[in-house]
């Protein structure tokens, strides 16, 4: 089994940085708002639901989801490339990670998109 290659890792490298920077911003907002940090408060449905229902937050959450998934799984892929040397094994893992990413993306998307308070 082979895995597709566009370049030796340029795009992986570039998007790891770009998503990294984005994630800093997104995470701060996410953390502050979602976790109700100013009050150090509890997370309840009542708190989460209204926010999740607005279009802006849907876009925000989806961006966040995509970035985090790409960055995280691409990070795992980088680690795998260091320690797994068989091309076949690498290919399997590559597709496994892609699948995992898709599943999580779908799971996240069906949570966020159709949500109505």
């Amino acid at each position: 089994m082979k895995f597709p290659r566009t370049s030796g890792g340029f795009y992986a490298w570039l998007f790891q940085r770009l998503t990294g920077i984005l994630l800093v911003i997104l995470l701060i907002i996410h953390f502050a708002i979602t976790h109700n940090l100013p009050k150090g408060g509890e997370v309840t449905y009542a708190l989460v639901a209204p926010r999740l229902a607005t279009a802006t937050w849907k876009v925000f959450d989806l961006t966040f989801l995509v970035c985090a998934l790409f960055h995280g799984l691409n990070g795992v892929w980088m680690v795998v490339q260091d320690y797994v040397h068989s091309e076949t094994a690498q290919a399997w893992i590559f597709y496994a990670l892609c699948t995992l990413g898709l599943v999580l993306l779908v799971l996240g998307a069906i949570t966020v998109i159709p949500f109505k308070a």
Partner: protein
Amino acid sequence: MLEKPSVIKRYRLHVGTIAWILHRATGLLLVLYLMLHIWVIHHVSQGPAGFNKVMKAVQSPLFLFLEIGLLGCVLYHAFNGLRIIIVEFSREGVEAHKQIFAAMMAVAVFLFLVGGVPMFIHFLHVLAG
């Protein structure tokens, strides 16, 4: 020829190596957390009852405490990540990577206190019931 010679002494660590090991470890932890997180939030579509039930479970004192650790991981990873990016894209960053590390960690620790202390207080509250 000897493929894998035994090692007498561990290779010497320095800022760069430690930063990398921690970055890798926190990165992988965060991936695990992310998966968990997506799964948990997924319950939101089951309506208030279902969501609050899972949230209760993940807001037990243990989880609240772990979440402080999570904050630490995120902050370390984020700011060391920024350090890497600065090193790669700034003019003299390569030479100054140790100083940048120190600066980034200072900010990370500050934010950790800002975010972590309220979380810790909240944790104590919950613990005390």
